[in-house]
């Protein structure tokens, strides 16, 4: 009910807001929701914290960019290929880490390392454009999923974010979701109850990778420029995991809440403090520490507690 109302409001939004700036802001929120939800599937439900989702984002972005630029594919095929390529990279990274039982900070470090390896490779290779990067041409049209106004991109981002949120909700009510939660809470007990932990984790990381890859493909088509740092840099990984951590790990609406809060807070901070380099990173760092220390359930947890308190009051 609430979700349907929210979706209807989101669909009507471009008729209400005409400012390109605010539509751009909404696009950023939706993109962050998409990738935060992707991270949440592995990190929030499955308890496997990745610090290297840039590996999947970058793979998706470069796959979509190169396939459209050099092979002339339409955007729809390129998006699908980007999702598949990112899922493949994710399954590979997942297999080599989970097969050897890496958990917790070890898993986080390995994902970070893989993303860095890909960044260096993208810097060295020819077909990625090396350190110069890729400039994508603009061909407005539905087959290219490129538009002359931001509203068009807004709808693409909205569709992708909604698909991600629906996937998360379906996962939450599925057997895989129940098994992932069991793995997060206690892996040995899960194994004793017949859960094939390796297969569950691989399915989660592949799904997470595919959705993140879609985010990368959208990024390439929207910003029309890629370089190794933008695609595979550690900053990307941090941005992806911030939204679910701020919003609420392991909840469907957490990444959306977190994405919105972060974009608005980030914008407010920019206006207050100016655009000095590094300032945003300090801001994100302080925010992350504060959230983990004071609000480990994130904004979703805060809302839930407020609702519980109101109910207790009534």
């Amino acid at each position, binding site marked *: 009910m609430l979700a349907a109302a929210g979706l209807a409001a989101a669909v009507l939004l471009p008729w209400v807001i005409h400012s390109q700036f605010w539509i751009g802001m909404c696009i950023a929120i939706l993109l962050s929701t998409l990738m935060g939800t992707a991270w949440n599937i592995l990190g929030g439900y499955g308890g496997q914290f990745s610090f290297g989702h840039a590996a999947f984002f970058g793979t998706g972005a470069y796959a979509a960019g190169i396939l459209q630029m050099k092979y002339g594919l339409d955007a729809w095929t390129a998006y699908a290929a980007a999702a598949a390529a990112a899922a493949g990279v994710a399954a590979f990274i997942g297999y080599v880490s989970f097969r050897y039982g890496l958990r917790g900070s070890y898993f986080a470090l390995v994902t970070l390392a893989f993303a860095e390896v890909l960044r260096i490779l993208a810097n060295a290779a020819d077909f990625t454009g090396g350190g110069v990067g890729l400039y994508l041409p603009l061909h407005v049209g539905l087959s290219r999923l490129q538009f002359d106004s931001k509203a068009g991109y807004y709808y693409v981002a909205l569709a992708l974010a909604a698909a991600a949120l629906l996937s998360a909700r379906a996962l939450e009510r599925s*057997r895989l979701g*129940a*098994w992932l939660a069991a793995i997060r809470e206690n892996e040995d007990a899960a194994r004793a109850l017949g859960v094939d932990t390796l297969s569950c984790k691989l399915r989660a990381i592949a799904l997470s990778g595919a959705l993140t890859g879609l985010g990368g493909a959208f990024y390439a088509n929207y910003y029309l420029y890629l370089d190794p740092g933008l695609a595979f840099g550690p900053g990307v990984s941090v941005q992806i995991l911030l939204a679910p951590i701020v919003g609420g790990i392991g909840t469907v609406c957490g990444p959306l809440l977190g994405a919105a809060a972060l974009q608005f807070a980030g914008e407010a901070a920019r206006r207050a403090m100016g655009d000095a380099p590094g300032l945003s990173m300090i801001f994100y760092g302080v925010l992350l520490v504060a959230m983990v220390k004071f609000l480990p359930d994130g904004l979703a947890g805060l809302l839930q507690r407020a609702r519980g308190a109101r109910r207790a009051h009534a």
Partner: protein
Amino acid sequence: MLEARRISRRFGGLLAVADVSLDVARGEIVGLIGPNGAGKTTLFALIAGFIAPDSGTVRFEGRDVTGRPPHEICRLGLARTFQIVQPFGRLSVRENVAVGSHLRRRDRRAALEHATDVATRLGMAALLDRPAASLTVAGRKRLEIARALATDPRLLLLDEVMAGLNPTEVAEIVPVLRGVRDGGVTILLIEHVMQAVVSLAERLYVLNQGSVIAEGTPAHIAAMPAVVEAYLGRGAAERLAGPRSSPTGSPAPGRPA
């Protein structure tokens, strides 16, 4: 149903399980007793696939399951509980049990319904929506059993499900376990609470320093000097305390069960 043949496992210089053979027939309740550190839990881990044996074989319902991973063994119908309870702390009791139910039920609703049934059968109806982390020790032990039962096992390995319970709680759980067996589940249990073992098990294995030192009915076992020594021969204090036959302690020599 279960045949373990000459299984051994060494950890560094310690031979934790040495050449152990053990059989459980369908429909039995078999007890596995022995002093602390005898290798009982290691033996369970070897049977359930958590540790691979260095030598020997484990057959379950005629199939060789030696060294197979735990989830496969569970899928074949052999479930275990943990001595140190391992609840999924932030999930509710119902969700905990449903993890087991899902093994043979893909549908979420069917799994939750089955979990409700199993938990109710184990007397946890009032606790279904409580987070597992909030349960008492007795509640957590029951949850361990309920979760394992939810996988529809034909053989259940119970690792000290009565340790840490008070006598009333022990008295409550004994008929529950009998009910489980009467429902068609064979049980192999490790237990220190002697009253319970003696009243439940038809047959006992005694493990000491990694080896089976005795096997037989509880009455037969209690009269064996080797068993009494394994428990009581370790120190003067215990030797003095022995004849007084404390209710929770060791098998009292000469007291028929």
